[in-house]
């Protein structure tokens, strides 16, 4: 974990008293105290001695392994007006994340050791929570030539992705799967068949038919999911499928996993909560790629998260400048922010109505994503580095009321009242956020 995650180091002391401690990976769910000494968990139990540390009252709150978001756009380098490493990781800390992975579709693209090296250097200085940087699969994400994966991995790349773009040519995708294996890092794919998605603005279905917005059909995703799973099976390599949106994609993934393919899949909070029906408002903050789909798609994603087919919840945090989103829907760029609202959105819309248990949600936001990228999962265990989040699952708040730590405010939840607040985030032994 240490060599691919970079951020401010910490060795804080802390005791959290009488919280409901939930660590699904270890089967813990009980009222306990937890002590952290110099950034390391040293005691878990009842009536743990405070040792002179700052004591945080945890009664009525949940203490869990902090979250890991493997899909964040930090917009750096190139669009520091939209997000920086400092602002994006501060947003992550406020959202309860102890680690994030940043996508390489920046300007310039992260496809060389030089660009990667400067990001890592900045992250060591500025990052409020440790951040890893994915490098591009292909040079410039142009889908023509493989990036120098071995050198990039040596320079600290956390994995490889052309996110935002598919690797269109099947032969090239096969080469990527073959070659990346020497690095031991994961390859993560954005599944979109461009001649089927075309200039699609939203999910193709009754709502796009009525609104007149160009349709981006489910099959544009699921045929690529099928292709990439077939290639991964053929090469015997692991693969991670980014931001799945369609029922058919979940079905493909489930079949492949049953057949032994080492494939993981992720879903975003907005795809788990909303459907294309929301696009009727023509609010550009509901425009994203892949698009919000139908209710059966949403149900299939939730079922996939529940049964573990989808082991990763990722925000696909995609900040955009206000003036770029304040345009007609058709002109607006794809993408919404999500770091600061992910837990609350899913706690409100999935745990609240009983669609998902709290422990399952916590697992899919922490150990699940860590494992998908071969990272050490955060855990509540003596001797483990402190990566903790203290949550108030019942606290209500209005999205945007206190501003955002992100430099952008293109949230799909603006003005909505959610339940679930992050009270404290400890990332790599350092108190990164406290409210």
């Amino acid at each position, binding site marked *: 974990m240490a060599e691919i995650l970079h951020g401010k180091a910490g060795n804080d002391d802390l005791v959290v008293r009488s919280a409901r401690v939930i660590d699904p990976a270890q089967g813990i769910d009980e009222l306990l105290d937890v002590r952290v000494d110099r950034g390391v968990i040293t005691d878990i139990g009842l009536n743990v001695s405070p040792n002179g540390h700052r004591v945080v009252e945890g009664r009525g709150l949940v203490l869990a392994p902090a979250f890991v978001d493997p899909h964040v756009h930090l917009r750096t380098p190139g669009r520091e007006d939209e997000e920086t490493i400092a602002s994006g990781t501060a947003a992550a800390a406020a959202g309860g994340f102890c680690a994030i992975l940043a996508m390489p579709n920046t300007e310039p693209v992260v496809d060389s050791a030089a660009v990667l090296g400067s990001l890592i250097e900045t992250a060591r200085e500025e990052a409020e929570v440790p951040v890893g940087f994915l490098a591009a699969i292909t040079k410039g994400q142009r889908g023509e030539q493989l990036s120098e994966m071995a050198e990039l991995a040596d320079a600290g790349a956390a994995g490889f992705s052309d996110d935002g773009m598919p690797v269109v040519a099947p032969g090239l995708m096969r080469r990527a799967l073959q070659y990346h294996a020497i690095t031991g890092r994961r390859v993560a794919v954005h599944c979109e068949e461009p001649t089927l998605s075309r200039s699609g603005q939203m999910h193709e279905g009754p709502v796009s038919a009525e609104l007149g917005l160009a349709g981006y059909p489910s099959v544009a995703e699921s045929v690529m999911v099928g292709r990439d799973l077939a290639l991964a099976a053929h090469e015997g390599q692991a693969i991670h499928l980014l931001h799945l949106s369609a029922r058919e994609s979940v079905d493909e993934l489930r079949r492949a996993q049953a057949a032994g393919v080492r494939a993981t899949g992720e879903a975003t909070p907005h795809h788990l909560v909303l459907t294309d029906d929301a696009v009727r408002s023509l609010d550009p*903050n509901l425009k994203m790629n892949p698009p919000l789909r139908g209710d059966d798609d949403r149900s299939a994603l939730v079922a996939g998260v529940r049964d573990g087919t989808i082991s990763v919840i990722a925000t696909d945090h995609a900040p955009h400048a206000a003036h770029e989103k304040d345009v007609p829907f058709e002109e607006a760029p794809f993408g919404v922010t999500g770091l600061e609202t992910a837990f609350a959105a899913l706690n409100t819309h999935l745990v609240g109505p009983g669609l998902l248990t709290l422990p399952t949600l916590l697992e899919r936001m922490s150990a699940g994503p860590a494992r998908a990228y071969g990272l050490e999962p955060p855990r509540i265990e003596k001797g483990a580095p402190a990566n903790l989040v203290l949550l108030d699952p019942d606290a209500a708040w209005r999205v945007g009321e206190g501003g955002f730590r992100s430099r952008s405010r293109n949230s799909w939840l603006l003005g909505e009242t959610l339940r679930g607040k992050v009270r404290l985030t400890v990332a790599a032994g350092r108190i990164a956020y406290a409210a």
Partner: protein
Amino acid sequence: MTVQLVRDDLLPPSDPPPRRHLISIGDLTCEDVTRLLATAGSFERSLEREMKKLPTLRGRTVVNLFFESSTRTSSSFELAAKRLSADVMSVKSSGSSVDKGESLKDTALTLAAYDPDVIVIRHPQIGAPTLVSRVTGAHVVNAGDGKHQHPTQALLDLYTIGQNVGPVEGLHVAIVGDVLHSRVARSNIQALTLMGARVTLVGPPALIPRGIEAMGCEVSTDIAAIGSADVVYVLRMQRERMEAGENYVPSLREYTARWGVTPARLRPGQKVMHPGPMNRGVEIDPAVADSVDALIETQVRAGLVVRMAVLYDLLTHGPVEIKAEATEEVA
């Protein structure tokens, strides 16, 4: 008209003031449509007089903001506002700050500084009127946004049908052609089904959007399906959509052969409508366009009184009383 609620991009104000817009036919109830068409009828009678100008909207300001070329719609909105004595300002995208790269939001805010009562907007992008309604305090009338909606076209079509065919309820209307790219079709499907007509869409498979049956219409790829219709509504075949490589249809020639509306495919007495501009010889045979059963020019005339009714309704919130107005005018 119901209030169009749009999620604000800033933190929502405690209680946004109710504003009335006409952005989509979906904003209207059956009663709204009936009232608007009755108002249009009153205006039509008033226009038979020698003095055609009514003082109704004296002192009001209407801005026409057109980002797409238009003859019928822009001229009829302009004349409608003038006939109601409103001050009219028409802004076209060419020759304006838009040419200099100004965003729609900034253009709208600039015009809003004059405090217009109504902004009529046509724009190539879906969602443009919604944006303008969010950033200005004016009533917004959508004069066509991309492939989304063209509500005043649908209202004038309902008016035309009511005047020339009979009550819309129970009629069968076939809409023929490129439904996928047609805002006119979308507004008309909503308007016709709202008022109780049966609607059948007819066209090539790739030009009938998947899932559109959910709007309450039927779908056929067979031109023979127009046979039982009381009204055949022909859509413009947009040549720019048929560029090589698009493959919505193999060729315009094949489209015309298969789906062109020709005298042979019509029964006598079936009424034919078209929103214009027509591609004679493509989607519509010239003999059909010029036949006694074509209502195409009638539609254009209806555009004026229907747009007068829309402006009037937005600004006065009530049924028109021409008699009282006329008295005032004489006085």
